[in-house]
């Protein structure tokens, strides 16, 4: 399955249940919405009821949290089957999940556990990615995860690992700039080094989010406003790159919708004119 670049469609928001009614009532100036794939692995009910209406008005992309593509267990084809059915029902612009493992055998951690940056992991991911993409009959975009530890076994940096995976598979990445910032603080590297190392053609999407700072370390909670450092990283990154689909992601401690819209508008204000597809002023 060869990977293709995804068209630039602008600035999106994570679609969460608490905003369903307000979105339908106010039709906000959002270019697209991203859903959590697994939340729609159910037969029906409220989420599907609202999604059906929202997807009539906005493009939708799908973002998964449970594929566990890096797991050394057998590929979970039951999961992939559910994902494929959901894809067929939603008809998303693109799909993504995380470059990590979250389950092993019968155990599911429901966390995004980091991979070691080794040749063995690269080979493993290359093989699994090809199988998954062939099964789904579409490219899978992979997101970098936040991490709180470095493995003894790692033979390269995370950005070298991603770049090499792209070289081998032509896969594209969803770069979460907050996650890069979190890992940079926790492992004492410069986040710019990471961002500058990823080839432009390997980037399909950007996530912007918040975190919780505990002084000695940062936890990627996605439940706070985006911090100034992350905004600055995004601004500097955008200056050097062509337009990339960008999204504000909030997963907990949900603020009034207008606060997320303000963050989305702020993101729009930080990018070069070449990134604009609408004049929302």
């Amino acid at each position, binding site marked *: 399955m060869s990977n293709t670049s995804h068209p630039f469609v602008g600035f999106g928001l994570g679609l969460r249940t608490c905003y369903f009614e307000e979105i339908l009532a106010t039709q906000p100036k959002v270019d697209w919405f991203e859903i959590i794939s697994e939340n729609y692995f159910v*037969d029906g*009910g409220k989420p599907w009821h609202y999604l059906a209406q929202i997807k009539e008005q906005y493009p939708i992309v799908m973002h998964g949290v449970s594929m566990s593509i890096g797991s*050394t267990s057998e590929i979970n084809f039951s999961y992939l089957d559910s994902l494929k059915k959901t894809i067929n029902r939603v008809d998303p612009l693109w799909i993504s999940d995380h470059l990590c493992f979250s*389950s*092993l055998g019968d155990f599911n*951690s429901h*966390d995004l556990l980091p991979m070691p940056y080794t040749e063995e*992991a690269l080979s493993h991911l290359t093989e699994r990615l090809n199988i998954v993409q062939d099964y789904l009959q579409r490219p899978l975009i992979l997101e970098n995860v936040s991490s709180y530890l470095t*493995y003894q076994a790692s033979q390269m940096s995370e950005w070298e690992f991603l770049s090499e995976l792209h070289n081998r598979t032509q896969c594209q990445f969803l770069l979460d700039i907050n996650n890069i910032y979190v890992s940079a603080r926790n492992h004492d590297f410069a986040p710019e080094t990471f961002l500058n190392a990823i080839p432009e053609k390997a980037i399909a999407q950007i996530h912007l989010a918040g975190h919780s700072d505990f002084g*000695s370390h940062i936890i990627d909670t996605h439940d706070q406003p985006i911090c100034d450092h992350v905004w600055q990283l995004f601004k500097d990154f955008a200056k050097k790159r062509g337009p990339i689909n960008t999204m504000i992601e909030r997963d907990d401690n949900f603020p009034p919708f207008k606060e997320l819209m303000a963050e989305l508008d702020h993101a729009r204000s930080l990018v070069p004119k070449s990134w604009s597809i609408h004049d929302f002023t």
Partner: protein
Amino acid sequence: MTSLEQLQQDFVNMLNHGSMDFENHIAAQEGALAPTQRAEIYQNAYRIRLTKVLEQDHEMLGLYLGDELFDEMVKGYLARFPSSAPSLREFGDRLPQFLSEHQPFSEHGILKEIALFERLLLKAFDAGDSKTLQFAQLQSIEQANWPNIQFQLHESVYLLTCQFSAVESWQALKSDQSPPSPDIQSPHHWIIAREPDKRTGFYALSTCHYHCLTSMQNGLPFGFVCEAAAQYAESEEQGTMQVMELLQKGIELGWFKSDIRVQQA
């Protein structure tokens, strides 16, 4: 076992069993955090995330138990039934079983019933969206076919029989009231279903209506459902009236699928 397999197995053992072999995989780094603390971030996140799921899914059970017993329940449940499904929505599916099998919870049958009631509320919420039966459809049924009509319960419909005041206690706690005594004189029957506005509702059922609905669930045609109802009414005619009353209420509240079948003689 390859080194990647070993690393992942040790990581999972650390999360699931507290085994610290995993620490050997963590590089020492400059900064404030030691390898043990870095591993603990993942351990804490695992426990907190799954605890939060049970707190959200079983809010009234939590109030009924109180913080100390709820924490004990979560700890025991995590050890007995670690999560295996990709979706967190399924994590608590075996909580009623856990409560019925493990002391001190198993000594209080109401706990299992409150947990089961809360799970059925969740299942009704996520159930499929088949079209619901409308009154106009009944008018098109020929008189002669009525005894052979099979009504089907909507996917969101769940029936529950309680030996304790589980639902009444749930309702009381939801309204910031003290729960009643757990003991009741005879079983209480309930229907849980998603309503037309997509909210999940529940209603007390008479014994007659409960048996009518279980008959329909078992695929029995209308004639047999009326016979079942007659056993709980004073006459066959009153039994049929009970079924018609149930049909009317069920159609208003979306308890039946629009897909009705005529059983061939």
